[in-house]
């Protein structure tokens, strides 16, 4: 619906839900409730696009990424990847898919085997998937990947602990690229990095996207990075998407009261701007996804809430071209 006519999206998610059962009892366990980590979301990503997924911790960003990668089997909904629904595929049919989709995590340290040399870490997926059986050519590929990611090929002989956080994140990126993927989930991929290094890695991701025609789902809680790296952005709150629009449109004209509260809470690095800013922190804290509020999940904290917000769940409506908002009070 939001794509150029004639170009099918690479990824389309329809009504995706992931409810984790909460069980009680050691011997005979019974289900006592659900964590509604993701509770019915829809979005699509065009080929070559970067979609940002933002929201505070626990809102379901990682779970959404894991469902798409089929590291979780979603409770409900469809995940159309390149036109094919992969949401229910059994594990053995996912092998081919695993090559096309990769993930880059926040903490490169915990996701890299500390006992392996960097070169072997990057070579392993190539070897396991039989992409390059010849060891010499495999080594060459590893060196290429390192230099594409801005690392000296000599790093192939080092261990992860001998590198800085930024360098390790580049190794994580090189490893993801080793499979020649077309789609990468970046889950807080630059969140742990210092700003000066973060900007280097953001630029690298953007260069790689252009060079290899990659498509990204960029999950992050840092809104400033998302504004600059992503073409479109979806804002999540308690398992739902509350707003979605082109990046500049979303940050310049936020319409959902939650998005507005979220943006007003981010201080910008300029004392003149800060001195003139109205500050409206959202009251209270995020409720539990076990018993989320009825109707609109944001209503208990919302300054605009009316009676109806407690009863009816708002759906995403297109308020301006390409700008979708799930709030019945936004006119």
């Amino acid at each position, binding site marked *: 619906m939001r794509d150029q006519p004639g170009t099918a999206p690479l990824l389309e998610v329809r009504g995706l839900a992931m409810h984790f059962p909460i069980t009680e009892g050691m011997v005979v366990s019974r289900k006592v409730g659900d964590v509604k980590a993701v509770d019915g979301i829809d979005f699509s990503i065009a080929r070559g696009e970067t979609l940002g997924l933002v929201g*505070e*911790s626990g809102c379901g960003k990682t779970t959404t990424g894991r469902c798409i990668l089929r590291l979780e089997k979603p409770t409900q909904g469809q995940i159309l990847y390149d036109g094919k629904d992969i949401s229910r595929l059994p594990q053995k049919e996912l092998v081919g898919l695993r090559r096309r989709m990769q993930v880059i995590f926040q903490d490169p340290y915990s996701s890299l085997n500390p006992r392996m040399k960097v070169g072997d870490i990057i070579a392993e997926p190539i070897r396991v998937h039989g992409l390059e059986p010849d060891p010499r050519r495999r080594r060459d590929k590893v060196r290429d990947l390192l230099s594409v990611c801005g690392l000296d090929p000599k790093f192939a002989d080092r261990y992860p602990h001998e590198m*800085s956080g*930024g*360098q390790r994140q580049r190794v994580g990126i090189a490893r993801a690229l080793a499979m020649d993927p077309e789609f990468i989930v970046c889950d807080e991929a630059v969140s742990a990095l*210092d*700003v*000066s*290094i*973060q*900007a*280097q890695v*953001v*630029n690298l991701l*953007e260069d790689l996207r252009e060079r290899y025609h990659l498509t990204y789902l960029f999950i992050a*809680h840092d*809104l*400033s*990075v998302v*504004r*600059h790296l992503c073409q479109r952005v979806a804002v999540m709150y308690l398992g739902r998407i509350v707003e979605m629009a082109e*990046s*500049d449109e979303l*940050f*310049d004209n936020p319409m959902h009261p939650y998005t507005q*509260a*979220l*943006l*007003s*809470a*981010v*201080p*910008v*690095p*300029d*004392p*003149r*701007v*800060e001195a003139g800013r109205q*500050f409206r*922190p*959202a009251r209270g*804290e*995020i409720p539990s996804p076990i018993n989320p509020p009825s109707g609109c999940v944001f209503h208990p904290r919302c300054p605009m809430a009316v009676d109806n917000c407690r009863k009816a769940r708002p759906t995403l409506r297109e308020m301006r071209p390409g700008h979708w908002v799930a709030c019945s009070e936004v006119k």
Partner: protein
Amino acid sequence: MPPLLEVRDLHTEFRTGAGVVRAVDGISYTVDPGETVAIVGESGSGKSVEALSIMRLIPNPPGRIVSGEVLFDGRDLRKLPEEEMRAVRGRDIGMVFQEPMTSLNPVLTIGRQITETLEQHQGATREDAEKRAIELLEMVGIADSRRRLRQYPHQLSGGMRQRVMIAVALACNPKLIIADEPTTALDVTIQAQILELMKSLTQRLGVAQIIITHNLGVVARYASRVNVMYAGRIVEAGTAEAIYHDPRHPYTVALLKSVPRLDQPRRARLDPVEGSPPDLTKLDGGCAFRPRCRFAVDKCATAYPRLETVGEPGHLAACFRSGEVAAARENTRESAA
């Protein structure tokens, strides 16, 4: 009026397998009564070690305060007997850390954490301490404070725990609060609530604050004066206005340019600071920023630039080329206009 805190040429180092880490390598700055001063820098620049050095909480071994003075309210804290120093901690200087879970005692109730401080430092009776604890919890915005008193830290959310830490820090009417990354672990909306709370309380009670953070937005919103740290030194100091709008150290300039801003339209590319921070065991006599600096000249390798006044009084930068830095900025501004 004399400053409340004056740190003079403080040096702290750690002996590690890889060599001596000069974590704090000659730092001087002041904090006036009631004022909020920021220490900003990227990870590993020595911010926490600097704060712990003031409080004399550096683990020894491997750490050691090598030299310097910490004048607080007229006394050199480095010369106090340990017993008097204990009284300074928690009574005269309150502390708020990034992860309240590690600084709150997990086996004590919230109430006990506060009453213990009051009994220890102010000789309050149990009953008075409890009454005051309820007041303090209400002051930091914890509703239902009577019930909360009997809860344990793990039963509270991260934001609530940080409110408790603030209550503990304020319990004995301190003159100074040192907040080391107080909201880094929290989500932005909670971060905003906590920072606003700290601002309004310190203003109301006239408490001075040192906010230590890597977040340039937080500094812009809350600090009146700013110290920028790089590799164990303060490379630039001044009012927030001077630091953000008239930076004179190449690192400050580069750092500000590298931050993506929420209030500016999408840019295709960000402007990173190229290279990476130095290994603190391998510092030489030159400027630690020079390998990443586009203004560096030969001299930068042989001598370390002192912090000197640039522009307005109180605006200091440690760079031989700060004049050229300012001129280059003028040029880009003109060519942009």
